[in-house]
């Protein structure tokens, strides 16, 4: 993992000290709310429906066990004993008091963490494939690039007051688990035919009220030219992006209003205008950063584990978890293990302080002390030996964390919704809870197979509903909560925006509608077909009819 250098330490501590002074001035009245609001937002502090909310950055979703324990400690001392892991690989605390926030930021700084640039019109926390460095289908590790971009974008004077927020995601694998085509900039790291490392660059993607799939800017940007090319995109956006209407201020609007050809031309022009030869420093810095992400010396293990096979035969519950919650690892004899934060009837992405500590303990015992946060609001252990998988599951299960549902129907992604959020128009979590209860039976979940259900409590789409196989959007309709369903969304390399199905459902009818759709799918699918495949074979209209049958 990356470790702060002296500059990082000093910078983060200075920011905490500055914010402590700003809070003191706010409390004495030297700063009014209009003056203070942009300052607190720059430090990740929002005011929500019931309380303040602090959003803490977890760069590219990577956490050490020590950091996870500190997050648990903060939850216990300064919050109500839990935190919420988000679709952007952050953690949010829902109940901090303003007077305590500087102390919380100091505790974060103690473990090389902060809340800087988790809000405001700046470059936000850079996200990446949660399986970075370990996925079997990986071409190159995206984390050094994400770290380079984090350093470059932190407190960047030119890009601290953009027209609107700006999100960058990086992947280095064939399968896109970083949702790069729905980011302001998406990068796919790979090696070209001559073995040169570089990036396929996408721009202008996004979800929110105007979902758009990014356009490809370039097939290949050599890694030494990455910052120059990203800077060119940022400069064009900063100069040309709309500032008159916040709903039209994201880069996706600029790209699609100008058209891909013109936007690309402007970026190319800017790219060649940027003076200086930065190639050597960028490459040098990347090599320095890469030294923090060297793969651990994995023991030379056979691919198959007799211990694992035996445990799976003897313990059916473990076997189910091992089938559902593990992913292929690049090192023989290892797997990536997913810890689901989606218990039946739970709030998606929430973890108590005790659960955080249990996950930290599991990381120390079974995953070289490292954890990741995924866009699905789950926690990933990246370095697990197959021989030790059963022992890991036993430890997780004892902590209530051995839930076998990764990427299944009860692995519902949901934003906090109107239970917490001041912007929301409807609740998300109770709908997610009802879905997990309705489809709780493990054998039914395995029969249904992989499916993504994603819920947002308003059009800002923090629950990524546009890219769910089934997307649920909570709205207000004639003074009551109503839920609009979209079908066919896809966050992966085959990106698609879900298509609206028709009139919304009341809160007490939405899960019934989903159940009708699932039964229809089970009755009509061909052998081995996933929900996504059946949807594409039968088409939107037939699937939509199932939703409304007997409605």
């Amino acid at each position, binding site marked *: 993992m990356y470790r702060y250098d002296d500059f990082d330490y000093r910078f983060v501590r200075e920011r905490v000290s500055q914010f402590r002074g700003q809070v003191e001035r706010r409390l004495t009245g030297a700063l009014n*709310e209009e003056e203070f609001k942009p300052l607190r937002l720059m430090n990740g502090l929002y005011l929500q429906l*019931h309380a303040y909310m602090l959003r803490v950055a977890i760069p590219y979703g990577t956490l050490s066990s020590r950091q996870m324990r500190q997050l648990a400690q903060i939850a216990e001392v300064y919050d109500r004993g839990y935190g919420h892991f988000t679709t952007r690989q952050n953690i949010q605390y829902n109940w901090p008091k303003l007077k305590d926030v500087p102390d919380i930021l100091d505790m974060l700084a103690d473990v090389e963490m902060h809340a800087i640039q988790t809000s405001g019109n700046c470059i936000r926390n850079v996200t990446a494939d949660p399986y970075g460095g370990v996925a079997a289908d990986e071409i190159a590790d995206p984390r050094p690039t994400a770290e380079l971009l984090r350093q470059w974008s932190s407190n960047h004077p030119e890009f601290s007051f953009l027209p609107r927020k700006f999100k960058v995601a990086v992947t280095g694998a064939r399968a896109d688990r970083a949702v790069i085509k729905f980011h302001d900039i998406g990068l796919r790291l790979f090696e070209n035919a001559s073995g040169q490392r570089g990036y396929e660059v996408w721009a202008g993607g996004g979800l929110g009220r105007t979902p758009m799939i990014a356009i490809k800017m370039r097939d290949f940007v050599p890694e030494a030219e990455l910052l120059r090319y990203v800077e060119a995109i940022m400069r064009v956006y900063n100069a040309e992006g709309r500032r008159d209407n916040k709903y039209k201020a994201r880069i996706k609007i600029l790209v699609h209003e100008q058209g891909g050809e013109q936007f690309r031309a402007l970026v190319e022009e800017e790219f060649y205008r940027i003076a200086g030869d930065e190639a050597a420093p960028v490459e040098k810095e990347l090599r320095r950063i890469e030294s923090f992400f060297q793969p651990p010396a994995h023991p030379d293990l056979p691919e198959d584990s007799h211990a694992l096979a035996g445990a799976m035969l003897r313990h059916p519950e473990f076997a189910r978890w091992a089938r559902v919650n593990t992913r292929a690892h690049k090192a023989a004899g290892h797997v990536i293990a997913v810890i689901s934060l989606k218990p039946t009837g739970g709030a998606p992405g929430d973890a108590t302080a005790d659960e955080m500590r249990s996950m930290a303990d599991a990381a120390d015992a079974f995953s070289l002390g490292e954890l990741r946060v995924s866009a699905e609001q789950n926690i990933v252990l990246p370095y697990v030996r197959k021989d030790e998988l059963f022992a890991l599951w036993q430890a997780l299960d004892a902590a209530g964390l051995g839930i076998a549902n990764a990427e299944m129907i009860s692995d519902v992604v949901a934003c906090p919704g109107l239970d917490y959020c001041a912007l929301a128009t409807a609740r998300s979590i109770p709908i997610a809870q009802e879905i997990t209860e309705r489809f709780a039976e493990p054998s039914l979940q395995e029969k249904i197979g992989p499916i993504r259900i994603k819920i947002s409590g308003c059009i800002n789409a923090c629950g990524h509903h546009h890219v769910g196989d089934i997307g649920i959007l909570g709205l207000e309709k004639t003074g009551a909560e109503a839920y609009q369903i979209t079908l066919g969304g896809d966050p992966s390399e085959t990106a698609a925006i879900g298509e609206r199905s028709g009139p919304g459902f009341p809160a007490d009818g939405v899960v019934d509608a989903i159940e009708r759709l699932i039964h229809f799918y089970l009755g009509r699918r061909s052998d081995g077909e996933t929900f996504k495949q059946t949807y594409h074979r039968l088409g939107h209209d037939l699937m939509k009819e199932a939703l409304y049958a007997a409605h």
Partner: protein
Amino acid sequence: MAKKSKLQIVTANHLLEGHSVFLSDAGWTPEHWRARVALGAEQATDLEAAGRSDEDANLVVGVYLVDVELDASGDPQPTHYREKLRVRARPSFWPDEPSPMRLAPSARFSAEVSHVSL
């Protein structure tokens, strides 16, 4: 038939603690049913102005009016589902029981909040 006057209360967030509060005859309280009720537009304007003066005095933040109706006990209850959720002071899926905050508002909070005469 004459149009019924709208009933409203004023809410905000406590600056220091962040939780939602309501303007009562005795100052700001986390208990919405104690809130002073404005009858009609003129009283609502005065009530909101009183709230804003406390915002200027750095006691609360984010002042706004909430439509209410009176329940059988004569206490104001919000009419919109958003505000019904807000007055619970907790997520809707948590058990419906008085929060510690409601049972024992902090001494510091009480001491800081000034009485607002209307």
